[in-house]
């Protein structure tokens, strides 16, 4: 079990190919205010996955007809850099990127207080610089940080992580190697402070019990991820205070 293509994914001691325990996150790094031009920006890394997010707005869109009279319109683009994958990826948006842009936008809609800015648009641009599994969840985490960094009022911060199933074992924060051999991949995004799961997908086969257990694992980790987000935002303002 857990061994595919000559690679041992779960050892007899229950450790993963990179030495992590099943419920262990990769090394997480977060930084805000990394770009000059954007109103808000963030760089988030989960192990080898590096994702940059930038927010522009609320602003008046060039296409005036897309605005709403009672709230801001949210626009999200999830995009992978051509050099982010092992084989070069065409920069033209793939069907996958179109779907993930939608899924990430819908994960943010319920936390952005968009009714404060009618007739405007808030743009969120997510660029995957290096893909090593979990790019949508890392992208959503980066987007949440960039929105907060832009000073856009949020009901809560969103964090995200994927749970995978390998040889029947549930593992947290799967990387690319694990994803390639996993029986299932379950990305979860949530705003723990308001108790809402806002991104939820399952690709693969799982029982109801496994889904419940995987959700517990993910939500537990997301609480920690959101704490890290808060810490990064706090330290930014502490830094500004010292100037």
């Amino acid at each position, binding site marked *: 079990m857990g061994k595919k293509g000559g690679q041992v994914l779960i050892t007899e001691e229950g450790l993963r190919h990179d030495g992590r325990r099943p419920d262990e996150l990769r090394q997480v790094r977060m930084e805000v205010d990394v770009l000059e031009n954007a109103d808000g920006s963030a760089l988030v890394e989960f192990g080898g996955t590096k994702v940059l997010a930038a927010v522009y707005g609320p602003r008046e869109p060039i296409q005036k007809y*897309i605005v709403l009279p009672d709230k801001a319109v*949210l*626009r999200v683009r999830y995009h992978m850099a051509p050099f982010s994958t092992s084989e070069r990826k065409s920069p033209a948006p793939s069907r996958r990127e179109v779907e993930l842009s*939608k*899924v990430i936008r*819908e994960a943010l*809609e319920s936390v952005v207080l968009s009714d404060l800015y009618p007739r405007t648009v808030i743009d969120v641009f997510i660029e995957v610089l290096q893909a090593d599994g979990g790019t949508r969840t890392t992208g959503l985490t980066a987007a949440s940080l960039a929105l907060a960094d832009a000073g856009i009022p949020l009901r809560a911060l969103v964090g995200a992580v994927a749970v995978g199933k390998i040889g029947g074992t549930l593992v947290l924060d799967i990387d690319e190697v694990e994803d390639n051999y996993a029986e299932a991949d379950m990305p979860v995004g949530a705003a723990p402070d308001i108790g809402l799961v806002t991104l939820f997908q399952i*690709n693969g086969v799982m*029982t109801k019990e496994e889904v419940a257990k995987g*959700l517990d694992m993910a939500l537990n980790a997301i609480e920690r991820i959101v704490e890290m987000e808060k810490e990064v935002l706090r330290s930014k303002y502490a830094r500004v205070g010292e100037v």
Partner: protein
Amino acid sequence: MSTTPFKIPIVPSIKRETYLNLYSRGLRLDNRDLYTPRRVEIETGVVEKANGSALVSLGNTKVMAGVKIEVGTPFRDTPDQGVLTVHAEFVPLASPTFEPGPPDENAIELARVVDRSLREVGAVDLSSLVIREGEKVWIVWVDLYILDHDGNLFDASMLAAMAALKTASLPDYEEYETGEIEVLRDKSQGPLKVDHTVVTVTTAKIGNYIIVDPTLDEEAISDARMVVAVDEQGRIVGLQKTGPHGYTREELERVLNISLSASKVYFKSLEEALARQG
């Protein structure tokens, strides 16, 4: 780029209170209870030129699925497998909100969710589709054609895809000395090998209520929707949260239970239709 929908129907949001009122008494506007899908009708073999086809009505929603099987080359990382591809077209004749043009994010999402739910469980036996390993395999194209949109395109599309695949036949072929393969479209070498049956159950969250198989009006007033794909063994073989709001942990648990139990209705409809026409 994904944008907040800015063409919002106004009538349904006025109806929201009426709907919530009905739900509190366990009723729907069309006399259903909260957890029963609309009437399902499935007709197979509706397009003779397709290798498999089906027309599904779910209430007033109508979806046609056509399966075409062609010869092609396998993916480099799976030389010993055929290919399954799902596409969805939101044909402009189906709804005043559909525009001609390439598939938008909703059509892409629909096709990808159906595709994943069939693929991950191995619904179609792809290893049975090899003609010459690494060189020639059968490519199974499933094209979903939305003909009339009254909500819940996911469940209707999955039923149509499944009915079309389960009644599809693999064409025969002739292999020339040059290695060329000619498809003999009028001759069949037997049915397409389908190992699992998959249905999706879509629920909408409206206020504190979870309802099965939302109509177009109900979708318009819903906070979010969940599409749960289930196979004949009751396993979850795919899932997608769609729509702008979120779910509490407790609601997710409820959604899974409701979906697993409602899936039986779809399995029964599918089984009956295939037995009748099969």
